[in-house]
Structures are given as C-alpha cells and as structure tokens.
C-alpha cells in the first residue's frame, strides 16, 4: 500500500521544488483557494486527523478555537493569527520530523500553507530544534524556492491570500517543544511554559490567537486536501485514522524512521519492519511513544497495536512515536537512570514540584543503580512522582517525567528491588557478555 508521508522519500532530489512538484507537491493549493476556509477546516475535521506532537488532539477541532472575531474581515481591532510549526523534536527516541525535512520538505511547507489558509494566518513560524542546523538550511532553501514559485508571499497563486513563513531556531531546551514554552521562546523570552488557560488559540504568540501544530501533523494535510477526508480515513483505525511515522531505535536489527498504518500490531512492526530483536535476543520491553511514557513488557507489547487507543488501553501512549526496544539483557534501572537524568536536566525549573521532584528522582535512581539504594527508596520514588503529577504543575512536563518512573517501577519493580538487595546491578555480567 502506498503511504501518505513517505511515498516520495526515495525519489532522488525530492528536496528540489521542481522534482517535488512533478510528484504532486503544492497541487492542493489550487483546490483549497477555491474553498472557503471553513470548508478546509471541515475537511480536516472529517479526516479525523489527530496531532502527532504527542497528545493526539483532534487537529480540525483545535483550529476552530481561533476566536471568530479575529477572522471576520473589516474589523479594525482584530489581532493577527499565527501558525506555528513545532519542529523542536527533542523527546528522547523521537526523530521523525527530521526525516520529513530531510526527505520531503515541500510537503511540510504545503501543509503549513493549508493550515495557515484555514485559520486565517498570514505569518507562520517554524520553531526548529537548535541542533537541527542542516535541516534549517534545507528548509531555508525550500522556502526560497517556494517563494520564487509564488507559493509564498503576497497573493499566492492569484488567490488574494498572503503568507510568509519564518524559521526560528531553538537554543537547546527540550521544554521549548511544549507549545507555551515555545511561544515564550519565540517571543525572545526564557523558555518558560505559561499557565493554561488561556490556550494559544485564544492568546498565543504576542497575545494573539495562535495554532501550534507538529510538523508531522502538518505534513498530513496535503494528502487530506488532495484526496479527501474519506480517502484519508481508509488508513488506520476509526479513532486513529491515517499513518504514523515511527522513530525506531534500540535493540533491533533495522533502526530508522518508518511510516506505518495506524493500528499495526507491535509484533508485526518489530518482526517484519524492524527485522526483529537484534542478535536473536528475546524482547524485554518496548517504549512505543517516546521517553515520557510508561514502557510495555514484552507480553504487553505483543498484544498492543500502534494507535492511540490501543496504546492508551495498555497504560502507555503512542505519543510522538519514539519507539524503542529493549532486549532481555537490558538493565531497566540503568535505562531509567538515563531517562531521569534527562528530565532533571530539562525541567525548566519554574514550578516547585517539577524543579525539585525531577532532581530528587534522578538522585535516588542513580543511587539505586550504583548499588546504594535503600528499601524505602522505592516507596519514596512513587510518592515523589505522585506529588509531581496530575495538575500540580504549570505544564505536563512533570507528568512526562513521572510517568516513566511509575511505569518502570510498576512493571519492572523486581529489578529495582534486586539492585537494592544485592547492592549492585544483577545485569552487569550479562551486559558484558552481550
């Protein structure tokens, strides 16, 4: 079956606009400019597209939150509407937006034009992860090409619609992927998340209505507008239509970015797409959606599919599709050690529970891993995590930091107990042997 996002990834020079156009890029524009913006939103709503940035929020619905009065023409006091392409991609294990940029940047730009048209935005930003310098260059070139062809700028294709797209590079903070921290950073401030509500759609960049969408979300739009919502819904499951880009890493034979149809069983994904667990080892655990979520045991993984509802039912999330695989030799304590270090390092430090909780969790897990754990530490970890999450902080970073800890403890608690009891890692031997 031909896929949606990656269908031209193997075409040489697909980055070049002429090649891309030959393969259908920007074809949707002629169509959308004949539609009313409400009709574009309706089409996206009907497609059932859900955000690919992690939360899986319905894209069309989010767009309708832009206040009506901001769109009615003729109003003197109306504020501009901004579109933001969230290309911060910093979740450990996630590297799929990067593939879109490297393989088919015009698909993303076309998606941005569609979204901007739908929400009435004439200025759009790409907030790109600071380390993505090469990717920034690719996009700069692609934007220039698009401007030259008249897909950007004033009066695009004679439609009367104006749009400019600018890139803004992040400075290396994971938290700037969180949409309100992104806005603070974009405005030139410190990347501190803001209290919601108000949501960005009401008061976002510079206090103006703003839609933040993930890069992959936007890249889905050309297909939906070209082929129609019905064609899109043929892919995937009822609640998770379409395909998903999976960033696959860890103990597998063929790591990389894969586009899969939503609903694909994890077993099929690992065995057929990823070439199976490496070295003929047994599977121990899978994190399907990025480091912010609970892991699945092998048993759970074999019974779970790659879609939002199946992952949720298994107590984790499809998240951003950061899929990593652990074989039987993996020390789960050590793995959690890396995860916790990351969250302690990346907490913006604004609110007390997250600032202090992430650091504390990191210290305790590190201690357990080094063999200096105490029995009471496991209870302490759970208490600390529970005190951090569920609405006790400004943003959900704290939940993202706590959920993996609780998940690891719940599913691999024995390994933590063993570390405490033995005063060392029981896996050391097998790790060396591997």
């Amino acid at each position, binding site marked *: 079956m031909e896929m949606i996002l990656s269908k031209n990834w193997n075409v040489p020079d697909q980055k070049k606009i002429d090649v891309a156009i030959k393969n259908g890029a920007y074809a949707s524009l002629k169509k959308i400019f004949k539609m009313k913006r409400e009709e574009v939103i309706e089409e996206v709503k009907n497609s059932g597209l859900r955000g690919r940035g992690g939360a899986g929020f319905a894209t069309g619905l989010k767009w309708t939150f832009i206040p009506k009065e901001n769109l009615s023409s003729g109003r003197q006091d109306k504020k501009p509407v901004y579109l933001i392409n969230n290309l911060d991609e910093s979740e450990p294990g996630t590297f799929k937006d990067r593939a879109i940029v490297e393989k088919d940047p015009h698909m993303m730009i076309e998606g941005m034009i569609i979204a901007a048209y739908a929400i009435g935005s004439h200025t759009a930003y790409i907030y790109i992860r600071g380390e993505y310098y090469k990717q920034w260059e690719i996009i700069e070139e692609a934007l220039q090409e698009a401007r030259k062809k008249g897909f950007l700028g004033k009066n695009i294709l004679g439609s009367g619609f104006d749009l400019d797209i600018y890139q803004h590079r992040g400075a290396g903070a994971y938290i700037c992927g969180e949409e309100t921290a992104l806005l603070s950073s974009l405005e030139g401030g410190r990347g501190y998340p803001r209290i919601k509500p108000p949501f960005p759609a009401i008061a976002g960049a510079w206090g103006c209505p703003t839609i933040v969408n993930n890069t992959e979300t936007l890249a889905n739009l050309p297909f939906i507008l070209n082929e129609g919502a019905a064609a899109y819904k043929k892919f995937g499951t009822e609640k998770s239509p379409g395909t998903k880009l999976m960033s696959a890493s860890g103990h597998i034979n063929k790591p990389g970015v894969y586009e899969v149809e939503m609903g694909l069983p994890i077993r099929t994904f690992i065995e057929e797409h990823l070439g199976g667990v490496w070295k003929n080892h047994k599977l121990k655990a899978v994190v399907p959606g990025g480091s912010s979520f609970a892991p699945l045991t092998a048993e759970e993984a074999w019974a779970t599919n790659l879609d939002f509802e199946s992952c949720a039912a298994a107590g984790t999330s499809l998240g951003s599709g950061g899929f990593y695989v652990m074989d039987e030799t993996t020390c789960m304590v050590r793995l959690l050690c890396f995860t916790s270090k990351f969250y*302690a390092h990346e907490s*913006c*430090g604004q609110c*007390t*529970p997250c600032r*202090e909780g992430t650091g504390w969790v990191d210290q305790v897990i590190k201690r357990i891993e080094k063999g200096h754990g105490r029995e009471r530490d496991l209870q302490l970890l759970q208490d600390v995590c529970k*005190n951090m999450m569920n609405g006790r902080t400004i943003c959900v970073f704290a939940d993202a930091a706590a959920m993996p800890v609780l998940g690891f403890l719940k599913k691999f608690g024995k390994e933590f107990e063993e570390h405490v009891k033995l005063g060392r890692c029981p896996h050391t031997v097998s790790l060396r042997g591997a």
Partner: protein
Amino acid sequence: MIKIKINDKELKVAEGTTVLQAALANKIDIPYFCYHKKLSIAGNCRMCLVNIKGQNKPVISCRERVKEGMEVDTKSTEVKKMQQGVLEFVLKNHPLDCPICDQSGECDLQDNYFKFSKFPSRLEDKKIRKPKAKPLGPLVTLDDERCILCTRCVRFCDEVAGTHELCITQRGGHSELTTYPGKPLTNAYSLCTVDVCPVGALTSTDFRFKKRVWFLKTTPSICTGCATGCNIKMDWDDAQVYRYRPRENEAVNQVWMCDEGRLSYKFINENRLFDPLIKKNGEFVKVEWKEAMRESAAILGDTPVASSVIGVLSAQASCEENSALKKFLETLFPKAEFFWTKKEVKNPSHDKFLIDADKNPNSAFLSLLGVGPLEGGPLAKGAIYIILDNLTGKQREALVASKPKKVILFTSNFGDVPLEGGTSPLMWADIILPKPTFAEQEGTFINRQGMTQKAKKAFEPKGHAREIGKVLEELWTTLSPR
C-alpha cells in the same frame, strides 16, 4: 457579590476576586509563596493548590477566580497531603539551618512548614549548592541556597521599579537568581525586594545579622526622608532603631518605600546630643538641664515684651513641635516673627513614584502657617532667636549678619564634629538644648498630598533629651509671673 463555599463555610465574596483572596479575607488559611497582591500572578510555587468540586484536577487558588456556587476544599486530607508534598519539595534543596538564617522568625517557609506540614525530611541525598552571601547591588545580599524561586523579586523589578535587573538563569534545580551581566541591582527601591522575598534569600546588607527579629519591637511611624511621608514600621530594640519597613497605605506608598528613606533611620541612633550645652568663654560646655533652663529663662526674662524675637520653625519637625514653639513665643512676645528652616541637599533625588525632591517631612504644615524662609528675611538686628533644628549655610550667614543678641537652638543631632569645645560648628548659638527625634515622641506630619499622618512614639528620649513642648511649658511657668 456572589456566593461560594469554602470547606462548608458559605461566603459572599466580590466578583472578580480569586479563591485565595476570598479565603484570606475570611480568615481561611491557604498557604502561599509566589502570590503577592501588588504583583502579577506567576503561579509557580504551587503552594496554594486547592480542590474545587467538579474539577478533576487541583487548581492554584491564587489564580482561580470565584464563580457563583463554587465549592472549594482547602483542608481535606487530600489537599493537606498535596500541601505537604509541595512543602517537601520546597525544602528539598533548602538549607535546614533556620537558627543561622537571618529571616528566622519572619519567614513564610518556616511558618507554612509549621502550620501545614511538620514532617521530618526524607531526603538522604545531597542538596544542590548555590552562591552564599552574594551582593546583587550595593544594598541587597543574596543567599541563593535559600531562594525558593518564587520570582517575586524579579516581578518587583519588572513591574514596580521597571528596571528589570533581576533574572533567573540555568534550569531545573540549578536555577539561580541573579542580575544581568554588568547591571547590578541599583534601582532606588531595591530593598523592597527584601520585603517581598518570602524567605531569607534576599537580605538587606545594612540589616543582615544585626538582630534576631524576635527581639525587635515594631512601632507604626512615618518616614521623615522626604515630603511623601511613606508609612513605615519602625523596628527597634533597646532605644536603637534597626530598620524601617514599609507599612501599607494605599493612598501614600502602597506597600513600598525608597532605599534612601529606608536607610534614613541612622540619625536616630548616631551623633545624638544627650545634654544641654551652654557657651562659656567661647566654648560649649555640658550642663545640667537646671542650669540650661535658668540661663534660658534669664535671657527671655530680660527681654522686653516688645523687642525683636524670632522663632525659626522647621520642616523637619512635627506639627506639635512647631506649634509649641509658635504658641510659646506668640504668648510671651506678641510681636514675635516666624521663619522656617528646611533641610536642603544638592541635586536631590526624585522620581514620579514616591521620591520627592523636598527632603522634609513637614513642609506642607509650614505652608499652612504661612511663614517664609529665614534667608528671605528681613531680619531685625540684635534679635533673640529660638530655632528648631539646624540651619542651612545660607540661613546661618543671614543669621550671623543680623548680629543676634542671643540664640537658643533645639536639636537632636550634631554632624560629624562634636559640639562641645571651642571648635563647634554651632558657635553662632548660645544655648543648645537636646530634643528627642520623632522616634522618641508622638508627632504628626503633613505630607505633600496634604495628608496628616501620625508617627507613634517608639521609646523614651535618648540621653537627657526632652520634648520641646515640655521644656517650653516649664519655661513659661517660670516666666509667667512677669
């Protein structure tokens, strides 16, 4: 007004208030750190979390606005556990050495811990080290380990002072409060950051480690630093003033005061005149009050009722002191003339907020009396003078040129040079009588807005200083048979 319920207590509260404000106004205690009524809402400390019926997640009460029929829970087991959780986090990297912290005794963290948690620490790992005793500017010293990152001080500099000196750098537990490179904390209100700091992180370089606060007594008073008359709390012990803190008065100074005024207390403690002085053979010598009174009475008693007598009132002195002198002279010498003296400084500080270029607390009262400046004269030759407070250079020249017969001066302080001996800078006076400062007597001052404000007496007059009113009354009794 709308109806809400906090812990089964039905309340009527004004629309638009927050849950926290509604609770505090009704004496329901919700702990908080980052909220400050004069600053924007930061919502970062999470200390004020409460549950609201119908909402599946806790909310911060400092930001949540009341709604008709809202039911708030601030003290169920669940909420209490939440508060304990937050306090445990606040203390995670906070030094547990209150006994050596300057804030001890007036610390929101200490208070909230005792009121809402009181659980022993579960921390068995190292605390993060941060800078200690770091000067942020000339007047403020930071103990960063005590900082709970509530950003009140940052918001003060951004929103009230408008000078933006403070910021937070680094991330997570390593977040540090600091100043921007090359831009120290120098705004004219910098010590207000110490007031707003809920813990012992920001300290006044002047006050830190001078006194345990529980020894301090507090007297409501008025800053005498300028014509604004900021309302203050005067903190003192054993006849020494240790600091001023702003006292809330929305109409005058809100909850703020300037650094210059705040540090103007020192004259109460230093260079005080304790005993009357009389010029004998070209030298000032210390005498007992008895002798000073006898001498003064002799001077005044020898003066015919119709002769030239000049009273110099002071914009530094209270209404009571000025009135006492005025009434005394008017009764004894119906033809007595009055002028004023004011403190004058070169290039006086001033701004559009609180700081007034007029460095006198009671100029408005003198305007009411309709008297003019001493240097404006004309001054009768060979007059008798009774003067409140020190004179300016110009006034001194005018006085000396008028060849006064005798000069009696009431003052509380002398400059850097002692008054005794032959080199006294006050050689132009004949008798110098020690008066208490405004800390040692009750007094009223009229500020630039025309508001009459009272400064309460904190402690007894220092040394042998005596209130002007009492001294003049006694003199009057001695002279009245005349």
